[in-house]
């Protein structure tokens, strides 16, 4: 087990994030610390530090006020260098979050297991924590330029239910402090093309977590499930899939079925994959947490998970129910062959709070996603709608 954890660690220190566009340099990770950090922490001190083990909460059951108290990471907190028992993972089809990059970890209580399921959401033991850190590289072209870490979100399972906490990173990137009221942060970075990008980044408040994470009224983790972990961590060529790695680590409560039989979502950035699969993967990752029968957008009857097979549920020739101004005067969610007449594209392409989709705090348009879904609709047989 430890050996495999070590493999993960090594992979992690290579460190690109799962959400990277394909052009993302492999080594633009969080492990690069500035010279200051090195100077402040002589090696001798590090060696003398007692090994830190992941902790779930204060003795009185209250959550920690700072991220470091959880003992998830060793060395500089910003490096996200996980200790034993903290498992890095990523997803094949990520959620677009205003262009931010993400690092994800699972922390199971010792000796406990994930309840594996092929198609359904996995079940998790109490005292599981799943974390996600959001950051931007200062310069997407230059991994040595470092990153701005904004927040680390925790999903915490206790008493058979999940709650969410958010930790905001200090300006000096040494510590993150619990903060549940949300915040707006002005972010500036240089993109792959050398252009300066400004993002009015929204750290959501605690009550907003439900927007995406509440399914049938209960908070649940969204990313870690079978079809999202069928690839190697960071898509490292030749490396085993994360499902295999998890299984070898003994994280699951059962033997896995033959891996080739398991459902997989398409890596939607990969233009060698079929267009439809890519578009459906994008919609699943970015829309289906609400647009499914258990999600917040259930009243709309527009369902965008990869398992949906009914054309009308998917929006094809489907009239809007309660879209109001969101419909933009258009008649159908998707008009085959006509993205310009499709409400889906209209809403993905808007920043008007009454119109834009997804609802949550996106302050930028994911032009990649708009283009992908536009291409998919444009390629449909233009049969017209009744």
């Amino acid at each position, binding site marked *: 087990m430890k050996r495999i954890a070590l493999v993960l660690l090594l992979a992690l220190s290579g460190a690109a994030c799962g959400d990277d566009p394909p052009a993302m340099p492999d080594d633009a990770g969080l492990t690069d610390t500035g010279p200051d950090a090195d100077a402040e922490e002589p090696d001798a001190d590090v060696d003398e530090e007692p090994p830190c083990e992941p902790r779930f909460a204060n003795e009185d059951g209250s959550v920690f006020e700072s991220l470091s108290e959880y003992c998830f990471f060793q060395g500089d907190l910003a490096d996200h260098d996980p200790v034993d028992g903290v498992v890095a993972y990523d997803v094949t089809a990520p959620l677009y979050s205003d262009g931010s990059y993400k690092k994800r970890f699972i922390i199971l209580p010792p000796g406990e297991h994930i309840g594996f399921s092929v198609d359904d959401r996995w079940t998790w033991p109490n005292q599981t924590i799943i974390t996600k850190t959001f950051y931007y590289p200062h310069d997407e072209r230059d991994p040595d330029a470092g990153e701005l870490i904004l927040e680390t979100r925790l999903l915490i399972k206790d008493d058979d239910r999940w709650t969410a906490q958010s930790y905001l990173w200090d300006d000096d990137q040494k510590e993150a402090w619990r903060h549940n009221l949300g915040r707006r942060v002005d972010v500036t970075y240089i993109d792959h093309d050398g252009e300066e990008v400004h993002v009015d980044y929204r750290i959501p408040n605690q009550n907003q977590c439900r927007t995406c994470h509440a399914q049938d009224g209960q908070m649940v983790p969204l990313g870690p499930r079978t079809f999202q972990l069928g690839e190697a961590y960071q898509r490292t060529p030749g490396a085993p899939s994360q499902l295999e790695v998890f299984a070898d680590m003994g994280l699951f409560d059962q033997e896995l079925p033959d891996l080739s039989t398991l459902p997989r979502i398409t890596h939607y950035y990969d233009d060698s994959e079929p267009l439809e699969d890519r578009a459906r993967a994008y919609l699943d990752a970015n829309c289906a947490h609400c647009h499914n029968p258990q999600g917040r957008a*259930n*009243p709309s009857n527009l369902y965008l998970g990869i398992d949906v097979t009914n054309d009308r549920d998917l929006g094809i020739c489907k009239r809007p129910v309660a879209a*109001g101004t969101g419909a933009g005067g258009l008649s159908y969610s998707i008009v085959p062959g006509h993205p310009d007449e499709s409400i889906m594209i209209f809403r993905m392409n808007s920043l008007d709070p009454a119109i834009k989709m997804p609802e949550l705090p996106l302050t930028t348009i994911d032009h990649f996603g708009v283009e992908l879904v536009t291409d998919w609709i444009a390629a449909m047989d233009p049969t017209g709608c009744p």
Partner: protein
Amino acid sequence: MKLHRLLVALTASAFLFACGDDPEENQNQNQNQNQNQNQNQNQNQNQNQNQNQNQNQNQNQNQNQNQNQNQDDPTHPFEDCTASVSATGDAAEDQPAILAMFIDAEAGDILCFHDGDYELDDQLQFAVSNVEIRGESRDGVRLDFDGQAGSNGIDIQDVDNITIRSLTILNTAGDGLVVRNGDGVHIDDVAVIWERGPHPDNGAYGIYPVQSTDVIVENSLVSGASDAGLYLGQSENGILRNNEIFENVAGIEVENSTNIDVYNNEAYNNTGGILIFNLPDLPRKEGRLTRVFDNEVYENNTSNFTSGGIVQNVPRGTGILVIGVQDVEIFDNEIYGNLSLGVGVVSFMSTGLPFEQDPDYYPFAESIYVHGNTIYDNGENPIDLAAGATDLRPVPGILWDGVVNPAADPADVLSCFPDNVDDDGEPATYVNLQGEGPATQELGDNNCDLTPLDPVDL
């Protein structure tokens, strides 16, 4: 299958309206031009309205004083708040203050807003059961969401036993007050207003409980919603009463819901006053058992200013409209001055919209019991659906398309329209379009009685 083929045939015969090439369209444009004038008139009415509100408010204050004097009343005094906020008028302070109160809430809490002008820059989400959110007074607590980032005003999700009372929500980008998946929802003395008046860019819904059970919305006011002012959708067991709903596209809309009472409401200057709809392609299929009574539904002549959704098919000047719902009782209402039609009862195929794609959907308006209403001065300048339905001018006070499931026993789907009168006490005018058959203005077999529906007991 047979039934569906028949429905297709019925739809194809399209005996009702076609929106696109309607000769009335020019008139419609004129209507839009007149709209400005109407709005001016509306403003005057608003001023009157405000006076009325002030009077109401005085009454409320008297009531409050009485209640304050009666310290045993556990529900109203402002004093038993477990947490409260005061306005600064600065979103940078008001938003986090309210959020902190909402996030820290626990079951049993009463979360209070002191009177004041609150500025909000994002929606306020809430998800704690057994909580009351209470303002000091409806006209005093003003939550202004103008320029907000997130879509809605107060957005409540997955709760049991929630009460929201005595506050005003202004100018939201999306919906004003949303309750999704609530069981036990009480909305009392809440106002949702878009201050610029009717405008297509206003938020869609004012008060919007959806997929909820045991819902009461009362003593509330909605104005300016670009879809429905007061909407109750995909819900079971609801009471909408004593509300004042004006200048929305749909005033009050009950959609795909069961066991609903709508009474003592005033719906005016909307595009359509009260709509009872059952629509295809929704997760909840059943729309039936609704009573609409003792409402005043008048002059719902505001041009349709929505930009989408089913309500774009509602002709301006609609009083009460039933589409595709079964077991509806409409009685003792006063319905007047609606330019397109007073009371319309139609099956979904009369909208001309497709529904065959939803095999679980039942499109007929059946077992409708319309009695004892006062209906006058309606249908004098009908457009769209109302104009296409009949050549009669004015359009009769009650218009029924007469379409029922041909496979059903006629006795099981009988609709009755007895004892409706105009303002002189004469029988209200009536037309049965009889599907494809010759229309009749005689009540005939439909001058009958049905067993009254049971009141909703909450």
